[in-house]
């Protein structure tokens, strides 16, 4: 016979006003197996908890019910108190008689509330009788992390994890880390030179003993679960031995072929053997195989001839490496919406219509013009520049419905850079609204308008066309109500921030969610901004949606702190609410395998002594199982049960209805 104790909380007057707690306790005392009942003013208070512990010890209780507030409120409190008295915490159950009873049934005669409380408590008692003591699951944790994406968010995450004393593998798709930030000229609102603040961090990441850089590499496959991921990374062939290369650059100099530079967004050429930009980390060139005549046609090979350390190998192949890590930070960043979609602004048709990112390159002192603003068509200095904001953003028809958040600020920055570099030049900005929320952001935009002469026009541009060597920009100024036509030498489009190509594929490999724009979903938009639904995988930066550099950096650090917290113990304790298979009755139909949203169920072979497979059964991986119970309801042979919510427990509650 079980020895159950029932504790009915009055919660001051919160429950007692509409529930006769004394009567509930008395009624429960009549049930078989219930050996102790009481009602008390505040069960959650220290004296209340002490009373609970005393009662457990004195009455040798093997299970307790606390009829009080929602389990979401104090289940943990009471389970901890029960554990303090030597009871298995999962032998403590809560009946919700406040949020779902006393607070919603205002009957002052207490009739309805009392009856309902009695019913609910009785159901919980019968359920409790079927409870099994459970133990928290301990999962060993591999104290090594992987960061996917070597932009500023990823670099920050990797550095913070490394500084916390843990090993990190930083995986970057491009030949160099740095990401989008490496392209920027100056950054708002401080006008710091982007390279000057970024490159030291890149070098730090390269030199840190705890960080392994995998550049020119992509994540191919992810297996496992929190604490125990196995990640396969494809290390694309660079055709240059990273270990031996000294980064002298002789090969780049001697390479006779030039193609458009992706890093410079087509504004400049690069060699076929190249580093994306002069400050690349690692400073190891790669060969662009599709354009290399040696690799394609076995002609040339100039780079190999001049290479001192002989580190060029035209036969090099991609390598697949497998890494075991305990946590993954995803920081894959963003790209700009292709401008080709906006024919009305003349992009692709008119050479001097460029994107904001291309303007960054023109303004950058390491860019194709050495920091002088010169138009791409003829290299002349533009005397008037029109900036068009919200190109694709906040435009459900042609682009995306969201605001790209950073464009208002970088356009203001562009007008400032332009006025600093081209004295006497006039800039015009077509905007919808100016969104400059952020520390010193509004002042920055006001400065551009009031002190640096940028002409802001509220309205949209309808047409951009060429006339007598000028770019004519037609638009509306909705504040004055006039149509305007501006003769410009150059037009800059603030194109929308969108997710990376292939973001969905990576999400599927990782088992994390993404929205309709393929931005990754955080676990909770307010309270868990860097976690994902998949335990052990964290997010940082613009792979989640548009954000600026400070936010990306903050998120990189936040994700790193989550990783370090996870790594702080050798084992991770988890709630033991997981599914368990009855191996004797499982008939291997695999319905559970198909139903499981977490791929937590594996196929296990049962072998005889000779090692021959006798039959197959399902096996639940406790590390991956999240305890939803979908498999339990899917099982045809009733061979899976969910600990904490077993069929027996649920039926006992229903039968006590």
């Amino acid at each position: 016979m079980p020895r159950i104790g029932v504790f009915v909380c009055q919660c001051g007057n919160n429950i007692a006003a509409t529930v006769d707690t004394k009567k509930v306790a008395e009624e429960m005392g009549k049930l078989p197996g219930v050996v102790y009942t009481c009602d008390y003013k505040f069960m959650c208070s220290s004296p209340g908890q002490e009373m609970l512990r005393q009662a457990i010890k004195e009455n040798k209780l093997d299970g307790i019910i606390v009829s009080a507030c929602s389990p979401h409120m104090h289940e943990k409190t009471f389970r901890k108190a029960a554990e303090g008295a030597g009871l298995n915490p999962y032998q403590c159950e809560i009946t919700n008689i406040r949020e779902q009873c006393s607070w919603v049934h205002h009957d002052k005669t207490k009739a309805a509330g009392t009856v309902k409380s009695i019913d609910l408590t009785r159901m919980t008692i019968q359920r409790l009788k079927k409870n099994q003591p459970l133990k928290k699951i301990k999962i060993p944790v591999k104290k090594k992390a992987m960061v996917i994406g070597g932009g500023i968010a990823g670099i920050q995450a990797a550095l913070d994890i490394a500084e916390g004393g843990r090993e990190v593998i930083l995986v970057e798709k491009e030949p160099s880390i740095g990401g989008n930030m490496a392209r920027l000229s100056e950054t708002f609102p401080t006008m710091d030179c982007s390279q000057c603040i970024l490159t030291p961090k890149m070098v730090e990441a390269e030199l840190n003993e705890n960080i392994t850089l995998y550049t020119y590499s992509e994540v191919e496959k992810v297996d496992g679960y929190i604490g125990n991921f196995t990640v396969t990374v494809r290390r694309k062939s660079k055709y240059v031995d990273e270990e031996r290369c000294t980064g002298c650059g002789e090969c780049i100099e001697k390479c006779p072929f030039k193609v458009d530079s992706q890093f410079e967004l087509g504004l400049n050429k690069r060699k076929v053997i190249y580093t994306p930009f002069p400050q690349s980390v690692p400073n190891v060139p790669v060969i662009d195989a599709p354009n290399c005549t040696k690799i394609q046609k076995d002609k040339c090979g100039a780079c190999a001839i001049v290479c001192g350390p002989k580190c060029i190998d035209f036969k090099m192949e991609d390598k697949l490496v497998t890494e075991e890590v305990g946590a993954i930070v995803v920081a894959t960043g963003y790209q700009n919406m292709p401008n080709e979609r906006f024919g009305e602004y003349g992009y692709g048709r008119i050479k001097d219509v460029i994107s904001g990112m291309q303007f960054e390159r023109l303004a950058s002192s390491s860019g194709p013009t050495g920091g002088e603003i010169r138009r791409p068509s003829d290299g002349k200095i533009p005397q008037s520049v029109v900036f068009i904001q919200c190109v694709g953003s906040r435009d459900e028809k042609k682009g995306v419905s969201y605001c790209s958040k950073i464009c208002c600020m970088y356009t203001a920055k562009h007008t400032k850079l332009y006025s600093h570099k081209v004295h006497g030049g006039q800039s015009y900005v077509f905007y919808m609204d100016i969104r400059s929320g952020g520390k010193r952001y509004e002042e920055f935009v006001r400065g551009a308008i009031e002190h640096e002469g940028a002409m802001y026009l509220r309205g949209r541009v309808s047409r951009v066309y060429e006339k007598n060597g000028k770019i004519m920009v037609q638009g509306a100024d909705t504040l004055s109500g006039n149509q305007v036509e501006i003769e410009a030498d150059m037009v800059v489009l603030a194109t929308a921030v969108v997710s990376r190509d292939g973001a969905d594929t990576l999400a599927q490999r990782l088992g994390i969610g993404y929205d309709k724009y393929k931005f990754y979903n955080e676990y909770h938009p307010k309270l868990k901004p860097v976690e994902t639904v998949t335990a052990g995988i964290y997010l940082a930066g613009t792979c989640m949606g548009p954000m600026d550099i400070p936010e990306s950096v903050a998120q990189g650090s936040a994700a790193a702190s989550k990783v370090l917290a996870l790594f702080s113990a050798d084992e991770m304790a988890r709630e033991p609410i997981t599914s368990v298979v009855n191996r004797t009755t499982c008939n291997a139909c695999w319905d559970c395998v198909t139903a499981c949203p977490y791929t937590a169920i594996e196929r296990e072979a049962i072998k005889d002594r000779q090692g021959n497979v006798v039959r197959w059964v399902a096996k639940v991986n406790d590390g991956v199982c999240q305890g939803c119970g979908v498999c339990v309801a899917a099982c045809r042979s009733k061979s899976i049960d969910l600990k904490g919510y077993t069929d027996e427990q649920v039926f006992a509650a229903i039968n006590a209805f």
Partner: protein
Amino acid sequence: MSGHTEHSAPTGGYEPKIMAFVCNWCTYAGADLAGTSRMEYRPNVRIIKLPCTGRIDPLFIIKAFENGADGVLVSGCHPGDCHYTTGNYHARRRWIGFKHLMEFAGIDMRRLHFSWVSASEAIKWVDLINKVTDEIKALGPFMEYKGLKATEAEQG
């Protein structure tokens, strides 16, 4: 062990008993919110909390009727909002098949309700309970199944 407290509301007369199977993350939290917002609804519902609507075995519903429920309610996260990504889709699919079976068995489908109530939809929860209670009250006690358990016990 069925205790089934017979009770009458202050106004007297027949009061139906309704069993609700709800998920822990959306509807249970929504019902909690109704409480913290001090809303009021009919006291006829008894909630059984499950991690996810995907955990619901159709037998739970049959057992509820067998134990004297006059109506059964199932509610979980909205499609696409499942805490476990896809659990409620499983529940929905299972529900469609199960509904036909229940209809075939001659159960009045007005006694069975399926809804989505999110953690913020306290008002929807309140309206739902009131609506379902009133509907089932109008239908009267569900006698067909109530007898079943007794017969079974006699034979067994």
